[in-house]
């Protein structure tokens, strides 16, 4: 009898504890959902609202979804600005992908050089590259503008790309040097014995081993180049060269005092979606880079 009583009281307390845990769990997730909504809703509203009819573009997004049918009017009106949205998306893509390619190429070579060779001033030069992090590029825009003009690269997407690559170098060279440092020397020795030397050794043997580092470098280069605004605003002067953020200034300014908010929503969607997709697909490599930066 006492045993069954004990059992009953135990199951009661267990049930109470379970209920308490359930309540704590619910509170936790209710808070979580509320937080998630705050961070998600601005994206969701913009994306949904961008598919409303052109006549609704002026109206507040209540409800945010396209209640009167889906339409691409906002994207069409975005297309009437500058040289058309395709041209500017192309410019942005060209600059971002070229930045990725050049950053990867330059930082892989430099990372390999710093990791595997000994030469005079090696540490001084490495510190010089890293030290550029301390100096904000915002403070050297004027001379950059003049130097690019002297090189015949003013108002050029290539010139802008070179600036972006330079801005990526401290982080990227640091990442790649660490990546090469982590590759055991024995692998290299073995490959050397098999007759692979220098560039061949680098590309055939080591490249696959530092691929995660390359992915990290590439993601940061892409996102930073795609999102950069001030340098593009200063260094590009003709309409058809503008990258997306600079084009959006014309949209933001509006015509005859009226802003076409549909075009703004469409523009925000075009600018943010690639970032979100790249991040969600390659999150692991992004976080690695963040941690490396944070730990340093």
């Amino acid at each position, binding site marked *: 009898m006492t045993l069954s009583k004990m059992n009953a009281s135990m199951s009661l307390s267990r049930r109470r504890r379970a209920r308490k845990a359930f309540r704590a769990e619910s509170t936790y997730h209710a808070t979580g959902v509320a937080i998630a909504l705050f961070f998600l809703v601005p994206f969701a509203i913009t994306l949904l609202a961008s598919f409303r009819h052109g006549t609704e573009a002026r109206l507040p997004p209540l409800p945010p979804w396209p209640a009167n049918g889906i339409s691409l009017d906002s994207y069409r009106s975005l297309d009437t600005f500058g040289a058309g949205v395709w041209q500017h998306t192309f410019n942005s893509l060209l600059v971002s992908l070229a930045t990725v390619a050049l950053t990867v190429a330059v930082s892989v070579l430099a990372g390999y050089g710093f990791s*595997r060779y000994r030469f005079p001033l090696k540490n001084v030069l490495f510190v010089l590259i890293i030290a*550029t992090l301390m100096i904000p590029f915002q403070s050297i*825009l004027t*001379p950059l503008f003049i130097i690019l003009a002297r090189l015949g690269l003013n108002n050029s997407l290539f010139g802008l790309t070179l600036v972006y690559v330079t801005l990526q170098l401290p982080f990227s060279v640091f990442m790649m040097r660490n990546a090469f440092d982590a590759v055991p020397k024995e692998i290299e020795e073995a490959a050397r014995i098999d007759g692979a030397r220098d560039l061949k050794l680098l590309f055939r043997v080591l490249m696959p081993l530092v691929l995660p580092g390359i992915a990290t470098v590439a993601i940061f280069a892409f996102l930073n180049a795609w999102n950069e605004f001030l340098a593009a605003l200063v260094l590009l002067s003709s309409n058809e060269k503008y990258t997306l953020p600079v084009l959006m200034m014309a949209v933001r300014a509006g015509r005859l005092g009226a802003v076409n908010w549909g075009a703004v929503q469409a523009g925000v969607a075009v600018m943010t979606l690639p970032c979100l997709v790249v991040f969600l697909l390659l999150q692991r490599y992004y976080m690695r880079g*963040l941690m490396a930066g944070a730990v340093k």
Partner: protein
Amino acid sequence: MAGAGPGKALPVRRRRRHPQWRGLLYIAPAMALVVVFFVMPVLFTGWMSLHNWPLLGSPRWIGFNNYFRMANDARFVSALRFTTYYTVIVTIAIFAVAFPLAIFVEKHRRFVGAYRTIIFLPVVVGLASASLLWVWLANVDSGFVGPALKALGVVEKSPNLLATFDSAFFTIIVMVVWKIAGFTMIILLTGLQAIPSELAEAARIDGAGRWQRFRYITLPLMRRTIALALIISVTGSILAFDQFYIMTSGGPQNRMISVVYYIFNQSFVSFNLGYGAALSIALLAILVVISVMQLRLLRVGEDRA
């Protein structure tokens, strides 16, 4: 390594002794870019700051006159004051949001990974995109915030959030917190996770309350991480430009001109390139001082932790 024996170590040492010039070849492209697009511009900025440098026509040497001008430039002083104000407020706001978030997502529960990812999403979009998005959300007639408040009956008339300094400033702070908090959260999270859980457990058994554990265990052990997050937030805020340019155009009564915005105006709107360069040097000096303070702060953190 030492066990390899003297016979084996000798040739290795000999090979290492003379420099491998090929290494320079590998780093040459990176060095060329850094020299042409970073070192030269920095030196050039210093040189330009000693000139009256118009966009067209030849520059004229004026010594330190640009720097004297800066000291008496009321608009520069107010840009500095505004930037400081913004940096302090936004940093407090980011930490006030990011710290609880970091504690929230540190727990090992279901969906915690999803929460982390969602909170982090705004970090990967551009500040320019985020500013545009929020300038629309904050619009008085076509936006979301004002009309939604009106529809809910909270206000009678949709407020024009970007029309007065205080409400526009508040809107920008909310936007920046939305955009940046996830980043600070992840940095703080790495610090939280580095704290051995036995410590908090032991303190709990000794009867330390939740606040005491936070105050006397979590905070001291996170000093280094907090310093890092603080520095990133402060330097980033001092360089703020996009949000003011896009959201308020320096707006209400030109009271939101940050330092970078002022340099931009002097250099690329008024084309006082020399004066812009002098302002840049001042900005650079401020940031170098902060970087040095950063190193000291981090070192202090190491000593005490």
